[in-house]
């Protein structure tokens, strides 16, 4: 079946902004001859089509109109211009939860939502065991939603909507709240729905990886307008490129640094003391994607890159080793600090994360006023592209207690001719027996 489930044309949404709510009264009283508001077009002239079994991805920055578009399609906003047609039921998982009543239990909320969606009276009851199993809330399913964590509300909401099997399922950023294993389950379920060829899914996500993986088509919204639409790979690439140029990559919440691909950072960092020279120029500037946490008794003096000869560099050649360096000054004495760093690419793939602790080093103690330069030698192996450095310092006794932590705070570029694709450049040129 390839019948059209969603068709929208010249969809637009205008909000009227009033400096004072009573200006609206003046407008009403004058029967529209006085205008006291400014127009704000959250969405303008968007057209889209979606067939059964297709998945549409929507990318765009915050405020680009993604949520507005989804709310229009789910019927909770009315379009100012254009219109849309949806065949069958459309359910949407917008923001957190879906209008749950905090006082009711998970089970009662499922029943209430089913009624609110105008489903037949016994519909919820028929699907209850499936929902209960998928949401995997245990005893919480029969306790008030008020005590749920945000992740649990999303689990309940997703389990419910997936079980109700709407023709069109709309999923906002909401899934990001769930833990990784639940997200995996949700994506699997959506895959099943898409593959069954009966349903369509619309996803808006910061997780551009999900969009390239699941979607058959994608649109890029920018300032409320459709900037690009078509092949998800192309759209996502163009979108990410633009983000990079404008330097406003969306930040990912800092997660515990995973220890994968540790091999890329070779050997232990050279912790040199007390010579704490900080270069006066050539320091890396803080990226606009940075997430900076409060500091405790420590100062980050600077972050820079050194080539093998110890010269400060701004960019890295594909085949050259480089050291990621940073310098700190302790304002409070510390016995056993742990220095750490990690490197992510722009899609947020964790390429490597390590620390002096993981390298088996014991550092410190430091007196107040002492400085330290930490140099992390990085073997060649990063592909051509842009990378983000995070750095931090915690305590050996309590590795989650950070003295300072700057996530995705410094950015550098690896240049050269790409000799491979993929995340890391771990394969060298092959040897051929005929040329031996």
């Amino acid at each position, binding site marked *: 079946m390839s019948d059209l489930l969603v068709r929208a044309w010249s969809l637009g949404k205008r909000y009227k902004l009033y400096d004072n*709510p009573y200006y609206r009264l003046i407008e009403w009283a004058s029967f529209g001859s006085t205008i006291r508001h400014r127009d704000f077009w959250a969405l303008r002239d968007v057209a889209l089509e979606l067939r059964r079994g297709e998945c549409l991805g929507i990318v765009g920055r915050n405020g680009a109109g993604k949520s507005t578009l989804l709310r229009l399609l789910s019927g*909770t906003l*009315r379009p100012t211009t254009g219109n849309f047609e949806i065949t069958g039921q459309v359910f949407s998982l917008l923001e957190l939860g879906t*209008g749950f009543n905090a*006082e009711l239990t998970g089970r009662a909320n499922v029943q*209430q939502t089913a009624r609110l969606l105008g489903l037949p009276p016994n519909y919820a009851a028929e699907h209850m065991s499936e929902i209960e199993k998928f949401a995997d809330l245990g005893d919480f399913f029969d306790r008030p939603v008020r005590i749920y964590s945000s992740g649990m509300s999303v689990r309940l909401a997703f389990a419910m909507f997936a079980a109700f099997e709407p023709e069109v399922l709309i999923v906002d950023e909401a899934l990001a709240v769930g833990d990784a294993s639940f997200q995996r389950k949700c994506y699997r379920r959506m895959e099943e729905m898409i593959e069954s060829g009966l349903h369509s899914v619309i996803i808006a996500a910061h997780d551009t990886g999900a969009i390239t993986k699941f979607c058959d088509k994608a649109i890029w919204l920018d300032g409320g307008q459709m900037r690009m639409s078509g092949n998800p790979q192309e759209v996502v690439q163009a979108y990410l490129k633009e983000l990079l140029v404008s330097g406003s990559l969306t930040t990912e919440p800092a997660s515990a640094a995973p220890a994968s691909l540790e091999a890329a950072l070779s050997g232990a960092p050279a912790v040199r003391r007390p010579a704490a020279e900080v270069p006066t120029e050539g320091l890396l500037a803080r990226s606009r994607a940075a997430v900076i946490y409060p500091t405790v008794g420590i100062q980050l003096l600077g972050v820079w890159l050194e080539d093998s000869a110890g010269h400060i560099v701004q960019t890295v050649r594909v085949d050259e080793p480089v050291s990621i360096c940073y310098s700190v000054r302790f304002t409070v004495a510390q016995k056993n600090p742990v220095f750490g760093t990690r490197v992510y690419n722009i899609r947020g793939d964790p390429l490597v994360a390590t620390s002096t602790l993981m390298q088996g080093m014991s550092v410190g103690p430091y007196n107040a006023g002492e400085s330290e330069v930490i140099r992390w030698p990085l073997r060649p192996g990063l592909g051509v592209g842009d990378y983000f450095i995070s750095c931090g310092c915690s305590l050996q006794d309590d590795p989650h207690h950070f003295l300072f932590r700057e996530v995705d705070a410094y950015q550098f570029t690896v240049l050269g001719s790409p000799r491979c694709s993929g995340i890391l450049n771990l394969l060298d040129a092959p040897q051929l027996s005929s040329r031996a």
Partner: protein
Amino acid sequence: MTISLYRYRGFIWTRAVNDIRNRYAGTGIGIVWNFIHPLALIVTYSIVFSTLYSQKIDNMQGKHLPYVVYLCAGLFPWLALNESITVGCTAFVANANYLRKLPVPEQVFVASTAMTATLTLLMNFVLLICIAIPLGFTPTVYWLLLPVPLIALQALGFSIGLLLGTLNVFFRDISQWTTVTLQIAMWTVPIVYQAKILPKWVLPILAWHPVMPSIETVRELLMKSKLPPAHDWIGMFAWPVVFGVIADLVLRKLRAEIRDLV
């Protein structure tokens, strides 16, 4: 408007029942509190009026009847109307959580608050009747008609609540004004006092009061066991329709913007 209300009747009903059931959730005797509050009201007023003021009402047959029944026959409907209007007035803002996320027709939330108030009102009347009988009232077939004026009055409450609730989304002061206005409005109707203490010239004006026909009808049926005059019947049904049509027109006009603002 009525079609969508019918379609969501399941939600309106369960939500109202849950509201009443959960109102005293966590208390020891739970649902019994629904009866204790009106009972306390009745007992207090009957003591006050029988001992302090010793007010009595004639039922036109020379018999004197306790003032408390006259009072409660007016007061309970008024309190229910008051609840429908004030809670209905904030229904959109209070249920923004649903309105933002689910494509439910707006009026459903006002309807469910009106339903809650109506159920409370009917429970209160059952209690009032249980008390009226030992006080000297004889049950008659006319009592079976009591739900008619009560529900008509609540339909009026729903219509006014919907109208004010719609406007309150745009001008948030309306809910405050409503509370204040209703407090004053209570004294424009003979609820605590009797119509006969009013000057003669007021009575024709009072007949046009939207609340008057229903309350008159309740008293006629309950206390005098007779059908009220035709103008009461007309007024009782006409007022809810008039306000319902106005509310519907205003909602239609403003519907597109309500969810932009809640």
